[in-house]
């Protein structure tokens, strides 16, 4: 069995393809990280609203979560890029589209952060609801206000429970950044396709893209494992081993 295809791995680091690939990797890293931190911030807020006793906050948070969770990410990106600026006054819209450098990148930041935050909110909700209610009653009975209870009891406990599912969300955010290429963001997948378009070396280019994402996500898993160990409260969560 012989492969009729000749591999030419050098296209990946030849000038200018090597620079393209590095630029793409850098964009993926920055896009993924910025989106993740924004999503975490928004997600924690919305997730907490989902479990408060006050109905208006709960309704607001539920609407937010369902809306952004149920629409495909690609559709949401197109919405933010092509449709959303229409509601702004024409002058601001033109400024956004023409003057802001890299507007495509920032539009994806908005779209991906909001999408991921709705999923993070759900993780938060399930994390909080998995804490036995006795903890809350105990906290309230020691004289803490609701807000203090959230701050000192609920959220710290919930975060430690939720680190594994949140790690998955972090990884998914990086993988979702590949959709940004459809609105013109020059990230790793786009660049690998660009190399393929110029050199017709499809196999090498796609393998490069796979490796890039594998390496990034494995680094994330390592990082989160480290965070999990650091944050662990001894005896708080049952461990398998």
């Amino acid at each position: 069995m012989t492969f009729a295809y000749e591999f030419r791995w050098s296209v990946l680091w030849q000038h200018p393809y090597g620079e393209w690939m590095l630029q793409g990797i850098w964009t993926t890293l920055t896009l993924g990280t910025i989106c993740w931190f924004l999503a975490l911030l928004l997600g924690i807020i919305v997730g907490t609203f989902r479990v408060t006793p006050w109905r208006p906050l709960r309704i607001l948070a539920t609407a937010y979560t369902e809306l952004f969770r149920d629409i495909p990410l690609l559709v949401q990106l197109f919405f933010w890029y092509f449709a959303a600026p229409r509601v702004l006054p024409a002058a601001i819209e033109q400024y956004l589209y023409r003057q802001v450098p890299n507007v495509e990148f920032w539009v994806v930041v908005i779209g991906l952060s909001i999408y991921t935050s709705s999923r993070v909110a759900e993780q938060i909700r399930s994390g909080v609801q998995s804490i036995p209610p006795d903890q809350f009653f105990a906290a309230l009975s020691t004289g803490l206000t609701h807000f203090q209870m959230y701050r000192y009891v609920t959220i710290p406990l919930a975060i430690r429970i939720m680190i594994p599912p949140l790690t998955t969300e972090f990884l998914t955010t990086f993988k979702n950044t590949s959709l940004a290429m459809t609105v013109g963001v020059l990230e790793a997948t786009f660049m690998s396709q660009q190399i393929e378009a110029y050199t017709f070396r499809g196999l090498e280019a796609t393998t490069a893209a796979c490796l890039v994402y594998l390496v990034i996500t494995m680094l994330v898993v390592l990082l989160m494992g480290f965070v999990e160990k650091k944050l662990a409260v001894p005896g708080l969560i049952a461990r398998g081993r």
Partner: protein
Amino acid sequence: MKKIYLGLLTGFLALCFVAPVFAQGGTLEKIAKSGEFTVGVRDGAIPFGFISKDNEHVGFSVDVAKEFHKALEKKFGKSLKFTLKTTNPKTRIPLVSNGTIDIECGSTTHTVEREETVDFTITVFMTGTQLLVKKGSGIKSYKDLPGKKVGAAQGSTNEKAIRDLNDKGEIKPAANLVVYQEHSQGFLALERGILDAYCTDGILLAGMRAKAPNPDQYEVAGGFITYDPYAYIVRENDSKFRDFINIEIIKMIKDGRYAQIYDKWLGPNGVVPYPMSEEFKIFQKLEAWP
């Protein structure tokens, strides 16, 4: 543990044997054996391949592909399944190379560079790279592009043309090139005001303009930045199939079917009125081997 490794190894080997299947035999044998003629068509290249109001693939190249289908059925004396697959400037060459489609009938420019990976039929149309702008934008040619936002489709000759102009310094300061996946997205961006100009082949721009809700707002600007002869993509080193298709195209030129299809899509009552230039008429006459 050993069982898992064995299972993985078997699976991997099985995959390896599937891959070289398309390396054997010519396209004509493949079509005869499988009874299926698969054609790649576009869905955003008006009027060569686009989606009609009834959600069907229609266009100049689609009609030409239908003629190829009829000719193949006559040749093999049996009915063949006619399958259309959507391609875009990025996927069209890889899909022909790996055997997913037998021929790509769209609006592909025949270039020397592309000849390294695939083969082309004889030229079926001629155009060049131009710019689509909104009326009143003040852009008359590529020289007005410095600092402006220009769109193009990934993998197209037009994207390469703008990139080369930027790199060579012919557009100073460089134009901001935004790359989309299909022309329909780029046109939407132009319409929304995200782009100052969208760059692709002149005939496709005329097509996008004709299909726009308000054609008077747009104009096609600039002379031809590049020369783009259209041809259909076929697999490398497959002369039997390529000869068959070429001879079919020549037959169509000689017996008037080509003129009919041209008139339907590019004639005065067509989707995009675009009279055949005198040079193209002469070119066609010379191209039709006796």
